[in-house]
């Protein structure tokens, strides 16, 4: 089974702090994604990476950056946390389009971030 893990289930940070959210997958997937989930808005894509050191902006990248130095790890960085970044953050991974079953994303359990 694919396993996607996220470093923390809950985080509390103060406004202005730099925040790192880590995601690790164990299935050698090329594509990895960061979403935030807010009530009534579903999931919105922040950034995705289609391979090591590659990244693309999603729909709401402002205030965020990412790092993909190793294939299995995709980090989301809040350079200076703000209260409007309080949310549930979900990481996902999937294979590249050349591999069977590539359409399916596998999700981690999520990190609930509270910015005070």
């Amino acid at each position, binding site marked *: 089974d694919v396993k996607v893990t996220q470093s923390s289930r809950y985080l509390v940070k103060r406004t202005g702090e730099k925040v790192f959210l880590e995601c690790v997958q164990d299935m050698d997937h090329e594509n990895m994604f960061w979403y935030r989930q807010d009530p*009534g808005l*579903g*999931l919105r*894509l922040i950034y995705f990476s289609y391979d090591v050191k590659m990244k*693309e902006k999603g729909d709401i990248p402002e205030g965020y950056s990412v790092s993909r130095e190793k294939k299995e790890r995709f980090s989301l960085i809040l350079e200076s946390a703000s209260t409007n970044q309080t949310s549930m953050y*979900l990481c996902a991974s999937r294979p590249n*389009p050349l591999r069977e079953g590539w*359409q*399916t*994303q596998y999700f981690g359990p999520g990190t609930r971030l509270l910015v005070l």
Partner: protein
Amino acid sequence: AQSVTQLDSHVSVSEGTPVLLRCNYSSSYSPSLFWYVQHPNKGLQLLLKYTSAATLVKGINGFEAEFKKSETSFHLTKPSAHMSDAAEYFCVVSDHKWAYDKVIFGPGTSLSVIP
């Protein structure tokens, strides 16, 4: 442009009665469509997916969905609701124009099951 509409933000059914969660989508190309379920404080789990094969798709836990291109719909159904089905359900569309296609999530439908 892609979009996903889930017509009901909340659905309530009695245990043992049918479930219908509605989803309409728009897509410029041949889409893949998915339903994911999220139980409280858990990650998202894939229920089923349509990727241009059979239009009636069977998933886990007795759920199924039918892709209707003429109606641009992908409604999720289950003949008999169980208490454990209470969760948030997301309809998802993914276009295939590009190799690294965009994935769009609907806003979600919260399903309650009454004993």
